[in-house]
């Protein structure tokens, strides 16, 4: 069974030499216990200790990166089945499919779409993470040309998909030291693939139909000392694929079943012809355990909701439902900009801040500590009262930032405006809209009020 950090620490050299990249042996031991690193990062551990530790030091689902430099992605490393148990760690990279039978215009269009579809949201950046190149004609010259062109157009890590060994070799040669993800090694081509994998050091997708076949294939790869493996259990039917994703995650986490202790890959692009359905399938598999998701739809109206759903699922659930109180400048507000106040319920904050942003009117947003309650709840619980609001506004120091002291309060609390004018001396109280969606219109007319 898994050892604790202290138990592991006892078996380490205790020299704190830092060669593992951690400041102390203890820090390394803690990380090891949490399944975040592997034992071979310490070059000094004794052979006996290694044998004792190896069972407990392997993370239940191997984590590794694909690609190089800034755009590299990290896959695997998950430790739970349900996000509330701890958190999901590595959001599955979403790869956009490009094939050798696409026209030059289509290929350029896709590369451009990948660049274009980058969305900033409340501190997070949503975007596609990989390119999947498919050799539809099993032609190594055409494939190499596609790899070359795609690399010129786009700097994301690549998945090379071909049933032809020469094509994969050509692709690897074209990308030199990049170590793209090769797709796939199968029970049929394993003998031929293994030397290429060993020589190139590339991570690989292991594909076999059904659990047992996949299990033997992975064992063959690990016997050849290959480690960076991504699992493809073969099904392209949603119901079956879903079952396989659940079973593989469970086997890795609950049974420590080593052959399935790797991230998976799924191909919504091969599961339907309808781009909208493809997105629903991708959202499902990104939420339920796929380590990498390959899609072929490049339309913003589809990709954007998919990226939102992945963001939601991979947000750390321990993040409180409250936002830090304080002054939030939105746009570049100055002394004449409007001042709005609301509570620190995260959803309230996101929605209000988003609406102010979309109004394109710079403003000061004051977020008041109301224990994470929404406006109506906070008001009825006595946490958003004229006294408390006045205290808070004074403490923020907003008074030194604005010339016109006018405070806009949420429309739902209109009835406290009179009392607030009495307690918040020197301020004019304005009543904003009840629904956040009306904020843009409100702000656009603000100057004339």
């Amino acid at each position, binding site marked *: 069974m898994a050892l604790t950090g202290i138990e592991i620490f006892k078996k380490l050299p205790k020299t704190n030499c830092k060669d593992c990249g951690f400041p102390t042996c203890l820090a390394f031991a803690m990380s090891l216990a949490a399944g975040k690193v592997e034992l071979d990062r310490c070059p000094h551990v004794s052979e006996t200790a290694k044998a004792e530790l190896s069972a407990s030091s392997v993370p239940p689902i191997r984590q590794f990166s694909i690609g190089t430099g800034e755009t590299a992605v990290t896959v695997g490393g998950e430790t739970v089945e349900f996000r509330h148990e701890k958190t999901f760690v590595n959001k599955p990279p979403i790869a956009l499919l490009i094939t050798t039978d696409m026209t030059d215009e289509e290929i350029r269009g896709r590369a451009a779409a990948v660049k274009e579809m980058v969305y900033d949201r409340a501190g997070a950046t949503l975007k596609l993470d990989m390119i999947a190149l498919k050799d539809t004609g099993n032609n190594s010259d055409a494939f190499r040309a596609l790899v070359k062109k795609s690399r010129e157009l786009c700097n994301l890590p690549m998945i090379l998909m071909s049933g032809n060994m020469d094509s994969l070799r050509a692709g690897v040669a074209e990308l030199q030291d990049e170590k793209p993800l090769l797709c796939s090694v199968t029970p049929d081509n394993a003998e031929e693939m293994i030397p290429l994998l060993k020589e190139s050091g590339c991570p690989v997708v292991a594909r076999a139909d059904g659990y047992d076949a996949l*299990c033997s294939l992975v064992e063959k790869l690990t016997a050849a000392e290959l480690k960076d493996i991504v699992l493809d259990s073969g099904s392209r*039917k*949603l119901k079956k694929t879903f079952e396989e994703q659940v079973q593989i995650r469970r086997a890795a986490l609950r049974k420590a079943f080593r052959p399935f202790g790797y991230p998976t890959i799924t191909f919504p692009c091969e599961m339907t012809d309808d781009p909208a*359905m493809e997105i629903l399938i991708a959202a499902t598999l990104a*939420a339920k355990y796929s380590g990498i998701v390959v899609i072929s739809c490049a339309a913003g109206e589809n990709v954007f909701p998919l990226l939102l759903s992945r963001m939601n*699922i991979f947000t750390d659930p321990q993040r409180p439902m409250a936002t830090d109180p304080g002054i939030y400048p939105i746009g570049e507000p100055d002394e004449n900009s409007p001042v709005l106040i609301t509570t620190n319920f995260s959803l309230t904050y996101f929605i209000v801040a988003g609406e102010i942003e979309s109004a394109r009117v710079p403003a000061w947003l004051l977020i008041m500590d109301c224990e994470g309650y929404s406006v109506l709840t906070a008001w009825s619980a006595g946490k958003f009262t004229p006294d408390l609001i006045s205290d808070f506004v004074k403490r923020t120091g907003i008074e030194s930032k604005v010339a016109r002291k006018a405070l806009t309060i949420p429309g739902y609390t209109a009835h406290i405006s009179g009392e607030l004018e009495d307690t918040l001396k020197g301020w004019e109280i304005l009543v904003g809209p009840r629904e956040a969606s009306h904020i843009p219109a409100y702000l656009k007319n603000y100057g004339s009020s």
Partner: protein
Amino acid sequence: MSFEIDKLKYTGKIKEVGFGAKGDVIVGGEDSYPFYMFEGNEGAGVKIAMEVYDRVEDDWAPAAVAPFADVINDPVAWALSNVSKYGADMIALQLAGTDPNGANVGAEEAAALARKVADAVSVPVIVYGSGNVEKDADVLKKVAEACEGRNVLIGPVQEGDFRQIAASCIGYKQLVAATTPIDINLAKQLNILLENLGVSADRMVIDPTTGGLGYGLEYTYSIMERIRIAALVQMDDQLRRPIICDLGKEAWKCKEARGADPDVKFGDPARRGIMIEAVTAVLLLLAGADILVMRHPDSVALVRKYVDLMMN
């Protein structure tokens, strides 16, 4: 090594609740996690309730208005077309116009409308108030009375108004949607309070409160997962209820769905809201939703096809 499928042992089952005037449209009854058909039963399966509004605000996305252009000012006609044209499993009448901060439509008028809608359609009916507890206490009491004999689901029934509304629901034999703000303990507590008041366990559903996609949906997702885990493997009897997600209004409220954003990277504004609604529905289904309250016919059609792929 060879592999054996790991089947979880469930110890609980979600209660079956009978909807519709005859109580013969069953919701719930599942005894495993959503779509885990390799180890359990899905029960009655997913029901999609299509929204009908008493009054439509003028800030609706054009894409959400378009399919209903000819019926949008006539809730009865709207309900009928949702059933005949789009095959709605249920109709969810949203009494948004009763909001005292909005049109402030009176309780009698709202109740009369609810009765008309319930009489017009053959499918089960859900009636939701504005969410304002004082007003809902009045409006939903009268709705319960007016709809006697129709066995409608009434909500949101919240901590602030459950005494008044639940008493009428018991008296006039309506179903109760117990609504709490994204919190498993509050959900459980309200279920207990309702049972103590006399609402039987097979006459209520849980409304966990739905966050929008990109706007807190993750909280709803995890609370629903926790509710299902408690109900199915942790012997928590009070949480063995079907779950309803009132998602149409959340999905269409966000600025991305309203569609004004001119930036090309957001794609076709007419399709974007539909996809936001459909993706929201998918996550809620994965977390355990039994009833989805939805708006756009294209999102509904898509989600139906999706459920079919998940099940067959």
